[in-house]
């Protein structure tokens, strides 16, 4: 199974209890695969009970990227969370576990 790490780069961080993940296609021709693979349902299922709120995915076709916004996803925010990764820096890499879907 091909996973997202073969087609995308990531960077993630926090704003309050929101975790944002930017997912960037390694080349423009891979962008459609990215869009197919990263969906609200696939992200929500991947992170399970670590994401308690909604997931929104905003396409950025101009730079062949997606902004993935996950609400109530940091265990209460950087200072309140009981996780070691207080600012969600590693969660971007987590999304790279998603399988690549071609359609």
């Amino acid at each position, binding site marked *: 199974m091909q996973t997202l790490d073969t087609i995308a*780069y*990531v*960077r*993630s*961080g*926090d*704003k*309050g*209890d*929101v975790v*944002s993940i*930017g*997912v*960037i296609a390694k080349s423009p021709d891979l962008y459609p695969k990215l869009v197919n693979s990263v969906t609200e349902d696939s992200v929500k299922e*991947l*992170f*399970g*009970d*670590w994401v308690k709120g909604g997931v*929104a995915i*905003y*396409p*950025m*076709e*101009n*730079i062949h*990227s997606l*902004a993935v*916004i996950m*609400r*109530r996803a940091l*265990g*209460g*925010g*950087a*200072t*309140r969370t*009981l*996780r*070691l*990764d207080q600012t969600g*820096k*590693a*969660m971007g*890499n*987590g*999304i790279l*576990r998603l399988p690549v879907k071609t359609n």
Partner: protein
Amino acid sequence: MGKTIRLGAGSGFWGDALDPAIELLEKENIDYLSMDYLAELTMALLQRLQSRNPEAGYVPDLVAHMRALLPLAREKETKIICNGGGTNPEGAAKVIRNLAQELGLGGLRVAAVRGDNILDQVDELVATGCDLTNMDTGDSDFLAIRERVVAASVYTGAEGIIEALAKGADVVIAGRVSDNALYVGPVMHELGLDFTETNADIIASAITVGHIVECAAGATGGMSSRFDEMPDMGRVGFPIAEFHEDGTAIITKVEGSGGAVDQFTVKEHLVYEIGDPNEYLMPDGVADFTRLSIEELGEDRVRVSDMGGRGRPETLKLVVGYEDGWIGEGMLFFPWPHALQRAEKARGTLLTRFDRLGLKYDALHFDYVGVNMLHGPASPMPEYDPAEIGLRVAVHTRTRDEAEKVRRACAQLWIMGPGGTSFGTPMKPRPVVGSWPTLIPRDFVKQTVEILEA
């Protein structure tokens, strides 16, 4: 041709390296060095320092940084813009003015920009009847935390910085201005822009460019997915934005430094810590990241064009910090063989210890270090017998005494736990400052500028 403003990023957070900022001033000719020091709840930490010592409240590193940077900045005619004033910009300005005198930099003008810190006006704000619903949780009961509030800082814009520059400031020390106001301010000052709607696109362009470079090495190879490809990261160069009056910009870095600037280092930072990219909401305007173009020019130069957006919002973001209990934490490590099974049994043993100690808690969290600490439920279990596994526990409690029980229970596993268990130094309980982000009317906040001359 037209005017181009060269802005260097001199700091991306409190704790960032000083040597790349020195290198920026030494090797480049930049008009402004913009230095960001504040994260979301840094203000609560600084407010706590100031409550113990009224002279404190600014970022302590600021003094050592300015000692190194001020003489170079004067020589190169570079102005320094920072938010290191924390909760006490005027106190910081006095210290920096005195430092300038000590360094023989007579005539140096240091500006303090205030107005963001509304801790003393919280009751006044509540009395206006303004809706203070928590943006993250939807909780509207602000009065439930009112007595525990320790900090209240508004993300303010570039107005104070622009005023300070117009008054001839060489160094501007602000508190909680937005990170990118440190770039928007100089651009608006140099181009003589005000906040009328016709300037919305170019201000949004400055916001976008500020966002790209504000975390310093974040745009030059730091935090990159392609870190393995990045040259000489231990001496990474900080970025420079060349902002052109036509609203385009070139992102580059110090010549001969480590790291890189290419389309991906720029894209990676463009998508960092944003919400809806169609409307990146800032106090100075709303940038649209979905219409811009990025073009590699080679040699660590990337052009960003077609930027824009709309005028500034009527509300500003207020982040209230409040005392929110304690966290007790512990970490234990188990060696091969069957490290994970030992960790699992140790987890059960710890739960019994918590119970026997009568631990009262709001929330309890376990991780298996080396298995699922960073990705949680997204992590697969290992299909082999790992060389070592850690067990991490973190517990949120109401009081320090309860949090202390977590440390005690973990220590009891020194002898009560599995053979081979290893501990580092036990972790002290830490106080929690909760965050209550909300929106307030822009006109509640008034920035003021004070100039001190060395």
